[in-house]
């Protein structure tokens, strides 16, 4: 187990046209059969490092590389990516773009075909690997009809069919919903038990890191810390300082002043009782009554949905009689799996979709009487992927697009743009090219471009997907500030901790119905119903549930401990 399969020596890499090094002196050895998790903030060099393992760097990307990467005695400089494919498999984040066949079987066959494996053996590998990832029933379907999670599973199967010794996964679950995430992780849990396979995974989900043998933290192209999982996850300070989300459970116990930090729920429960900690009932009730008073303030209905059914062409029932209400000043989350109807519901709020049956009223008027153009002034909709809307050469023009279309005078436009850019924290960057900004910067431009026409309601479709922890925090802090300044916020997300910390009320959707609604605390208290919708509260919330209370953040629980200062 000690011999190293991958060895990275003094690796430096600079992309063409960039001044700084994306990787700046990396030394890393990965042992045979090991599961290494690579974590770090955006632009830290995670994907770059992953791409060096199978030779995409230096062969596919153009840039300047120094140092060596040696995988099983093959120096990546001397082998093409295609030749490395025999020993290093690579799974990418974008599950659409990495599949190219029209049939599941053929997708798996593609790799072995390239290595002239004979037909009988290919057939055997197809059976074996589709079985391994649980797609044998879909073997004759076109991949485009699969769900995102199934596509990612297929991508894994198609890479495993090459029988690689090393499997590199670059954020395989970032774009997936919770149920698909857990499906993919379930496969990786089995893979990491395999002695013959070395696993390297880039991932943002800290809770998944618990399965890794070691974690490497990377920032600005440097390895900050590499060590056994327990050691790294207990180092809450370093994690937070480089912008990786720490686990709530060790974070809580660290703030209580513990040395040996528990990581899992079970360990947390044990430590809690061993340490003789107790929750003050009075303080807990105080939090709840404050919270309810806060929600009760908003009484003026803004969006009213009455028995809404939406059927897509053909007979796909996306919504089955949804009734809900959103009040002025609300900050609500809509959660559920892909295909549960979240986005379909939200698209009714700004008139992109019209009800098949039932009514949707915004400001007391049915949406069908208002239309997308008019509704757009009341209800702003920020789409998930900022790259689906950015087209201007300057941030200013991008943000000014909507106000200009709405006939604002150029002076008004300037004021609107300035205000919107200030709200998203991009003041002074109005002359920049939006395409050169980071993903989080582009996301902010997208939000600003909607804010510029001063809508009362802001709908954000997965505003935190693809951002790192600190970017997610600053994005959501910004959204919260908008809410405090009077905007009504509706956001759709798969990140449960974002819901826990930022939503006042939540709606849980499943199969086109709202199965649960209430204050976020009430929602997260109902573990079983959530599980039924294949959702899982963050570990920390689950721990508090098992203690008989529902705390949404470690800070909250800390403030409710008996003997704690107010």
């Amino acid at each position, binding site marked *: 187990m000690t011999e190293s399969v991958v060895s990275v020596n003094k690796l430096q890499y600079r992309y063409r046209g960039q001044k700084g090094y994306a990787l700046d002196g990396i030394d890393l050895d990965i042992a045979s059969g090991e599961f290494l998790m690579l974590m770090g903030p955006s632009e830290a060099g995670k994907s770059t490092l992953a791409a060096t393992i*199978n030779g*995409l760097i230096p062969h*596919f990307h153009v840039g300047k590389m120094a140092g060596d990467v040696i995988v099983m005695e093959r120096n990546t400089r001397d082998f*093409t*990516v*295609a*030749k490395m*494919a025999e020993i290093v*498999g*690579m799974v*990418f984040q*974008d599950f*659409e*773009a*990495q*599949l*190219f066949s*029209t*049939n599941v*079987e*053929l997708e798996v*066959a*593609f*790799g072995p*075909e*390239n*290595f*002239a*494996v004979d*037909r009988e053996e*290919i*057939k055997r590998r*197809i059976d074996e690997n589709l079985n391994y990832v649980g797609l044998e029933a879909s073997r004759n379907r*076109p991949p*485009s*009809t699969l769900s995102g999670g199934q596509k990612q599973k297929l*991508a894994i199967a*198609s*890479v495993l069919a*090459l029988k690689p010794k090393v499997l590199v996964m670059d954020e395989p679950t970032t774009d997936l919903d919770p149920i698909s995430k857990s499906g993919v992780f379930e496969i990786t849990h089995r893979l990491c038990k395999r002695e013959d396979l070395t696993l390297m995974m880039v991932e943002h989900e800290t809770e998944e890191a618990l399965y890794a043998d070691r974690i490497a933290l990377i920032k600005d192209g440097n390895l900050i810390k590499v060590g056994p999982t327990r050691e790294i996850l207990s180092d809450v300070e370093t994690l937070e300082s480089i912008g990786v989300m720490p686990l709530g459970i060790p974070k809580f116990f660290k703030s209580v002043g513990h040395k040996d930090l528990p990581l899992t729920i079970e360990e947390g429960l044990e430590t809690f009782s061993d340490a003789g900690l107790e929750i003050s009932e009075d303080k807990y009730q105080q939090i709840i009554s404050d919270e309810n008073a806060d929600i009760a303030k908003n009484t003026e209905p803004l969006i009213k949905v009455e028995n809404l059914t939406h059927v897509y062409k053909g007979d796909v029932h996306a919504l089955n009689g949804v009734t809900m209400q959103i009040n002025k000043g609300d900050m609500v989350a809509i959660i559920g799996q892909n295909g549960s109807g979240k986005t379909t519901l939200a*698209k009714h709020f700004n008139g*992109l979709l019209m009800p098949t049956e039932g009514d949707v009223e915004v400001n007391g008027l049915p949406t069908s009487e208002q239309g*997308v*153009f008019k509704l*757009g*002034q009341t209800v*702003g*909709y920020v*789409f998930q*992927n900022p*790259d*689906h*809307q*950015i*087209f201007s050469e300057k941030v200013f023009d991008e943000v000014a697009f*909507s106000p200009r*279309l709405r006939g604002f005078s150029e002076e008004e436009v300037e004021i609107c743009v300035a205000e919107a850019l200030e709200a998203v924290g991009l003041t002074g960057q109005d002359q920049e090219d939006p395409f050169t900004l980071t993903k989080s910067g582009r996301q902010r431009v997208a939000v600003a*471009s*909607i804010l510029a*026409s001063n809508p009362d309601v802001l709908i954000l479709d997965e505003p935190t997907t693809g951002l790192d922890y600190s970017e997610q925090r600053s994005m959501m802090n910004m959204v919260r500030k908008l809410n405090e300044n009077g905007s009504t916020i509706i956001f759709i997300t798969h990140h449960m901790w974002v819901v826990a910390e930022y939503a006042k009320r939540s709606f849980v959707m499943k199969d086109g119905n709202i199965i649960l609604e209430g204050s976020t605390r009430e929602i997260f208290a109902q573990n079983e119903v959530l599980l039924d919708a294949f959702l899982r509260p963050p570990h920390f919330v689950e721990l508090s549930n098992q203690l008989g209370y529902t705390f949404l953040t470690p800070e909250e629980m800390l403030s409710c401990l008996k003997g704690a200062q107010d």
Partner: protein
Amino acid sequence: MDSEIYIDNNSFVHRLDPRVKITIFLLTFVAILLFQDPLWMLPITVLVVIQIIISQAYINLGRIRYVLIVLTISSMVLWNLFSTGETQLFWRLSVESMQFAIARTLLMVLMISAGMVLITSTRNEELVNGMIELGMPYRVGFAISTALRLVPTIASSAVTISQAQRSRGLDLDSGNLFERIKKFLPLLVPVFISTIRSTNIFGMALESKGFGAREKRTYYLVFHMEKADYVVLVFYIIFVAVSVYFALMGFGKIDGLIRF
């Protein structure tokens, strides 16, 4: 997803060997190009229509109906303008130029339809492997299949993008022609950029699965010629041979047609 071109319905046309389908496709082109007179093009038209019905390619043709309508109108106008004949019909039009315009339009529509039948009824891989077995280099075949594969990807991102821009107040349905064309910029740029992004990943994934690692590769898909394949093939060869014979004999020309 309904943006897929291939329609998975296992019709008679679908079940034919891809090599036969590609050959039929090429033979259809030959048959279409032989005659000037639309009446003489009728037999091949009937054959293509039969294929369209059996394979349900009309679903895909329906999707591109606007393109077909624009092509038909412009072709009818242009070929009437660029040719004339002895028999005056009305105004500047002659019977001959009208016949010729119909034939040219039919030619174009039939070619598109025959291509549509082929890609509606043949999986990407079958098409490529079929071409390769007929002698095309693997990389060329793969390039064609990649181009076909991009169509549904672009179509689905275009839908999302147009929704995103409409939410921002873009109104595509008003204004004159030039204003409308200008309005497509906010759609085209994101479509273009997201396509480039995804093809970049596509390229990486391709190499990471060993594309071109060996000189030789195996093919998991193998084809078997069935009885129906031979029947269809022989029928088509005879049909085209007879057509060529008539064309060589001088049938199917439009007498008195003057082309500029």
